[in-house]
């Protein structure tokens, strides 16, 4: 690697550098003795995110040329910074409230100095940095490190989010399974390296193409094995079958705002990593890989939705719903960019659909978790249908937000989730996966049953006396913003659709003149 190249790469990493500086600042200020500076950490984190978003916007056109997948990285960085701000509003206060969950005896021993505000926000920022780096990855090692940077802080966040044994249990489960998945995809990366002799995406793509061409248009075994293992390993991040087992337990154990974080951030990183990995062999995907993704997509949708139906705990329901949404996202990944179609609107581009859907799903799911996080049942978190039952009577505002978010998740027009479905289905048709479309719509119908149960509980149920609002302004505001965006982006979705479309445009341009339907994302030589 040339020296100048490294400098260029670093120059493209300004948003991440800003995030790292912010994280470090949070870490240090969080250690200070005075309460005032410690209290300022969430504001520092917010400032950092805003600054990072600004830097992404400013440096959007120039400076990032050295990186692969410029457009997608740009989009994801901006989306992560933006949604990160909402997540921060939702999560703010998690560490402060920790001690309130203790029983009376322990509460007497409560020391304000114990409140560990700083680390939480530092880990929060670090994990988001990981997603940004994932999006900008141009190299297998980089990708691995970025994915791990996304996940490692979340283990700590889960463990420290609640002062209960469940949180620790979740964290341990999450950590071990996460480590296992990391081992699997690292093995996959190693095999890819073994097959092609390079870790750089551009180089791998070139060699893989040659090998495929030399091998009667079949993917050679070692490369295939590598890709399959990587994909299956990364499936852990997006909680897709067969790596979905942790989702319900971990989501249930973590504090609700942290669950919202888990449902969006690692999933985004995983989806982007899958885009990168699959682009190594290009779309239309070679038959064995396409079948694998098809199978994973169908299983993920169906398993997620069916198990979601059977739950009584709303957090577990939303966890399985998040599994199901990963299945929808995989449909877009399978369809891939619209290589053999003339430029005629954004529909038909699966990758753009995935980028759009990530945001659409993120808004709905964050809003619903945030509403759940606003409620407390006695001194515990509100978690079951019983707890959210009849909240309409006491908290009509929260009930309305919950209604909007579940309707967006179910894909009811005109909310943003519906546009996401239009986008995904358009791309699936464009790539000829008609059966998959039917499975997708049937799954949406199944999912309506449990989303509706949430809405019914909120609106028609009898209130549970122990449930009260946690009265957290930031969290309510976060839910409000996410739900409002779900409406606004649904009715006026032009901006986001164009952004997602433009994000994949460089890839389209690179692909268009190529005679083989092969996508080459890299602009660097």
């Amino acid at each position: 690697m040339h020296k100048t190249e490294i400098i260029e790469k670093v120059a493209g990493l300004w948003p991440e550098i800003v995030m790292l500086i912010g994280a470090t600042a949070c870490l240090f200020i969080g250690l200070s003795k005075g309460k005032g500076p410690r209290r300022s950490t969430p504001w520092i984190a917010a400032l950092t995110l805003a600054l990072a978003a600004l830097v992404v916007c400013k440096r959007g056109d120039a400076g990032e040329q050295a990186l692969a997948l410029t457009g997608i990285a740009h989009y994801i960085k901006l989306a992560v910074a933006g949604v990160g701000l909402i997540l921060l509003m939702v999560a703010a206060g998690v560490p402060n409230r920790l001690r309130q969950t203790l029983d009376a005896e322990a509460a007497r021993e409560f020391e304000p100095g114990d409140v560990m505000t700083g680390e939480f926000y530092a880990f929060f920022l670090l994990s988001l940095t990981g997603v940004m780096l994932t999006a900008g990855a141009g190299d297998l090692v980089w990708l691995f490190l970025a994915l791990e940077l996304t996940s490692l802080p979340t283990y700590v966040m889960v463990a420290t989010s609640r002062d209960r044994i469940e949180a620790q249990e979740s964290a341990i489960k999450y950590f071990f399974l996460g480590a296992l998945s990391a081992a699997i995809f690292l093995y996959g990366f190693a095999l890819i390296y073994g097959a092609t002799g390079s870790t750089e995406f551009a180089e791998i793509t070139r060699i893989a193409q040659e090998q495929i061409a030399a091998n009667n248009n079949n993917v050679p075994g070692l490369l295939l094995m590598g890709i399959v293992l990587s994909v299956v390993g990364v499936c852990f991040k997006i909680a897709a079958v067969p790596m979905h087992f942790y989702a319900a337990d971990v989501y249930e154990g973590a504090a609700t705002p942290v669950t919202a974080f888990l449902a969006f951030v690692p999933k985004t990183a995983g989806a982007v990593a899958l885009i990168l990995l699959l682009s190594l062999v290009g779309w239309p995907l070679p038959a064995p890989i396409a079948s694998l993704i098809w199978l994973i997509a169908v299983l993920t949708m169906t398993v997620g939705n069916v198990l979601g139906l059977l739950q009584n705990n709303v957090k577990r329901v939303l966890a399985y719903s998040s599994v199901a949404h990963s299945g929808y996202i995989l449909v877009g990944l399978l369809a891939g960019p619209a290589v053999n179609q003339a430029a005629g609107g954004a529909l038909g581009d699966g990758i753009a659909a995935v980028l759009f859907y990530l945001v659409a799903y993120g808004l709905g799911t964050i809003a619903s978790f945030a509403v759940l996080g606003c409620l407390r049942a006695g001194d515990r978190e509100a978690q079951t249908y019983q707890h959210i039952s009849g909240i309409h009577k006491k908290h009509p505002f929260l009930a309305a937000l919950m209604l909007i978010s579940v309707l967006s998740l179910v894909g009811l027009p005109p909310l943003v989730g519906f546009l996401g479905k239009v986008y995904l289905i358009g791309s699936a048709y464009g790539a000829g996966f008609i059966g998959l479309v039917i499975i997708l719509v049937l799954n949406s119908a199944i999912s309506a049953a449990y989303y509706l149960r949430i809405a019914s509980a909120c609106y028609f149920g009898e209130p549970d006396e122990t449930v009260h609002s946690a009265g957290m302004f930031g969290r309510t505001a976060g839910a409000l913003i996410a739900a409002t965006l779900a409406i606004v982006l649904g009715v006026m979705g032009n901006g986001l659709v164009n952004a997602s479309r433009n994000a994949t445009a460089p890839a389209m341009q690179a692909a268009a003149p190529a005679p083989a339907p092969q996508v080459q994302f890299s602009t660097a030589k």
Partner: protein
Amino acid sequence: MDYLLLLITVFPIVSALPLMLPIKAFDCRKTVWSYALLSTLVTFLFSLIAVFNFDFAHAGAMQLTGSVRWVDAFGLSFGYGIDSISLWLMLLTTFLMPIIVLGSLTAVNTRIREFYFWLIALETFMLGTFVATDIIFFYLCFEFTLVPLYILIGVFGSSDRLRAAKVFFLYTFTGSMLTFAGVMYVVYINHLTTREWSFNIQELYTAAAGMSVTEQAWVLGALMAGFAVKVPIFPVHTWLPLAHTEAPTAGSVILAGVLLKLGTYGLLRFALPMCPEAVVEYAWLIGIFAVLGVLVTALICWVQTDVKKLIAYSSVSHLGFCVLGLFALDADNTGAVGSVMYMINHGLSTGALFLCIGMIYERFHTREMAKMSGLGRVIPVWASFTVFFVLASVGLPGLNGFVSEFLTLIGAFLSPSNVLGFEYAAFAGMGMIFAAIYLLYMVGKVIFGPVKVPDVHNEDGSHDLKDLNGREILTLLPLAAGCLILGLFPYNMLSSLEAPVGKLTQAGKAAALQEPGLVQTDANGTPLRLVLDDQAVTNVNPTADRAAER
């Protein structure tokens, strides 16, 4: 670009928003009610302006059109416009709404603000389905009508409301998801032929004409999945009686009056022009289910003990005629024109019957036929109105039901032998007799016979039975007038419907006749080109194109 239709559509929901704001004045029942009444009356006024601006000489063309940007990159827009079919259905909606509000003053006691909010919000989405010229705009409104009604049933319904709301939502949502897949398929076909993504209904007609019969059959199946549930056609009607009986009166009137018509409207607007050959091929099946629906549910009506359930089942039975007429494809469009008129008539007469039953329920808190009889002698005004609407519903000549029911049967009778035929008309005709039996049986039990009055629960706590008050008479009077006028002078409406209905059934009729000039087939009999009278379909066989692409 004309903004009138946009105004009509958006006005209700915008005017409903203040109801959810913390305004003290709206805590008073009368204020909220008057506000809702005002809002719906203004909407009605706007729609009358639309009627006056509508050029009946060109009733078949989309008028007062316009479009609001939505997602350009998808080719999505909020395109709107009306032909006379949409016009009449729009008018039906805006006409029914003030009446419903008028009738609801004492029907709701809790969460009154929300009740009117969802009621008025629902109007926006019902109107949206009728004015949409963009298929996703249509679909948006079609789907979103579920949410307000879901809440109206779930919050304001009677004892088993939760189950009713859930069944209603899931049943219709599942069907319409499949419809969505079908619609997207047509859009995709359009993309293959034109290289553009467009959701404009007119363009999709053109694209759909190029589909092979198999593709058309699948699309028809997908469309039927959503629309047949909504209508509802016989085997998938089971959600309706439950929803009707549990819904508050206002919900029932809207459901019977307008929402069921979304299904038949969808069949007419999309299924007929988009998959004409499949319609011809499978008309017998749809016809059989329609006739079965007419007969079986008529028999079910006969054994009902709950008056509201009886009327609910009678809706299913009546809409069977409507579906039969739609798929008749006879040369003069008698069936389809009759069907469209039937949609309006059924909305008026059945809506009115639900209102009548609601008034009785408010007094007695029961709807059991066994508990009441001879009411004609106790509350004669109510009884007169009820008998009047029952007769309209049965199809007494001179009232509106007769004209349309007769036309749909004639349509089925005249239908080409490869579509429907006289046997369908004959069997469905028996349904008319059954309808007379079960409705008059109900009238005989409840209104005539020895006087038997259940316990009366008035709002003020008193227990004397009062006949209809001025407000209630004012609620029913416009509907009665409507039934009479449309019964005596149906000609204007029928003639205005001919042109647009003709346009929509044209492709189907051509496919039914298989005239050599209209449908060209290749050696295997696969239709290659469908030439419509004013527009030649340029692209022909996308299957061939796609094969070449591969």
